[in-house]
């Protein structure tokens, strides 16, 4: 499957986060600000943009920006939306539908809560299976479905709370090297286990943050990418798969559709897990990251617990994972997938300061949306890998 390999490249990225977890702006203004940063990063201007992606309203965004794109994508698959946008954008660029695509995300749940703004609620009408068959049982979202996946993983494979906690500990160690991370102080397995039990077996420190945040990427053709300001980061492979929308419909709670999205993306890129220098694996919860390690083939199904135990995903380990500090310690505004891409690109360009990996060439950004529902995998690489 050659597919999209090397046809398009990410040429600009930006993200806005704060150690306080709060940002001073929101909505379209914040989206526009982060788009400007990403375009500046690429050495492009708004006039160059002929494709837009937004997880809710690509048309509203284009109107706000005053542009007239020939490629538009409002796909929403939850947290993996931005990996899906990147896949679609690469396909559209390869097919000649457009040349410069921007995807953007901004969300400010933390300052919204401070300001007393109402939370988004699910539509309680008919024809919503979540309302009919799950919410009457007091299902706490988003934690409870992930907790049930963890319970099942423990029962089938003997995975322990200590092993899940190690993921939070290793990720926090990366956050300690990132001055923009929300939480940087080192934690121990005991700290995780002593934190309040939210939905068993997940403790508070097994759960991602709730912060404000925004991010954007700019993608263009490989040919144009080589004329721009920064080294191109090529899309070597992309794959997406979803198999359910509500947790009671997930075929197997210990196996995500990442098995398929990952295999397709790796095949397109012509790589195996041993070629991956950096895994940016969506960590809404510790169990989420553990399932990615298994489903992408870094270890066998059921062996994620023993695999992470020695800290190999932490700084200095053999498989760096979530080097920005992840959704667990860096930022998590609700749909975190944009930040996976931003960090992967910055690492491949060597811009990560204290946490910079030594000459990484291949990074994987693996997004997870809704309740382990939609997985989307991007394989990104430097010029040497194209």
């Amino acid at each position, binding site marked *: 499957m050659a597919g999209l390999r090397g046809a398009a490249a990410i040429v600009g990225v930006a993200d806005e986060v704060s150690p306080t977890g709060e940002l001073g702006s929101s909505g379209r203004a914040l989206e526009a600000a982060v788009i400007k940063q990403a375009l500046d990063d690429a050495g492009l201007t708004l006039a160059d943009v002929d494709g837009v992606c937004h997880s809710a309203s690509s048309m509203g965004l284009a109107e706000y920006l005053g542009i007239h794109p020939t490629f538009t994508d409002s796909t929403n698959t939850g947290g993996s939306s931005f990996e899906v946008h990147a896949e679609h954008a690469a396909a559209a660029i390869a097919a000649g539908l457009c040349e410069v695509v921007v995807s953007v995300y901004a969300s400010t749940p933390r300052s919204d809560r401070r300001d007393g703004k109402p939370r988004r609620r699910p539509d309680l009408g*008919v024809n919503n299976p979540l309302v009919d*068959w799950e919410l009457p049982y007091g299902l706490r979202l988003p934690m409870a479905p992930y907790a049930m996946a963890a319970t099942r993983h423990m029962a089938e494979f003997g995975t322990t709370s200590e092993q899940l906690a190690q993921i939070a500990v290793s990720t926090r160690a990366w956050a300690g090297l990132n001055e923009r991370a929300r939480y940087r102080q080192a934690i121990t397995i005991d700290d995780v286990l002593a934190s309040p039990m939210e939905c068993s077996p997940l403790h508070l420190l097994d759960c991602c943050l709730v912060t404000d945040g925004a991010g954007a990427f700019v993608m263009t053709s490989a040919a144009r990418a080589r004329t721009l300001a920064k080294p191109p980061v090529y899309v070597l492979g992309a794959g997406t798969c979803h198999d359910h929308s509500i947790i*009671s419909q997930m075929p197997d709670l210990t196996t995500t559709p990442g098995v398929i999205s990952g295999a397709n993306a790796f095949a397109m890129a012509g790589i195996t897990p041993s070629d991956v220098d950096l895994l940016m694996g969506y960590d809404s919860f510790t169990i989420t990251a553990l399932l990615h390690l298994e489903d992408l083939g870094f270890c066998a199904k059921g062996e994620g617990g023993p695999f992470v135990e020695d800290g190999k995903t932490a700084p200095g380990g053999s498989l760096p994972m979530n080097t920005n500090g992840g959704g667990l310690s860096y930022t998590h505004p609700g749909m975190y997938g944009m930040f996976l891409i931003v960090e992967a690109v910055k690492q491949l360009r060597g811009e990560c300061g204290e946490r910079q990996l030594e000459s990484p060439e291949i990074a994987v950004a693996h997004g997870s949306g809704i309740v382990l529902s939609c997985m989307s995998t991007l394989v990104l690489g430097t010029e040497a890998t194209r």
Partner: protein
Amino acid sequence: MSTKVPADTPLRMEPPISPGAEPFWEATRECRLVLPWCLACERPFFYPREVCPLCLGTAIAWRPATGTGVVYSFTIENRPATAGFSMGKPYVVALVELDEGVRLMGNIVGCPPEKTEVGMPVSVTWEALSDGRHLPLFEPRREENAR
């Protein structure tokens, strides 16, 4: 963890009746658990809908379920999802695999939350809703109920 809850707060969000699920809810008025079976596939499916999710067939029969199964997975929720739920006490949300092979969500009642286990045999029990329907829940299966 205790949460102060006004006395008139509804305990549960009551489910609406979506198209295709009317026979399911009608049977619950008599505390009967029925499942939709696709007549072409000769297989049950859940949740109820207008077409079979295996073949898109519309010939669907409603057949009684045994009402017994095992816990596929669960979580103990220490903080309620909605203000009135469980009156602030910890409660279990589980996925139950019925003998017929379909999986549905329910609370596990009739035992302390911490006694719940994956693989635990359970049988259906009912909680009255405000409109005469009943909501299926599950409780540990007693020996005399085991098939």
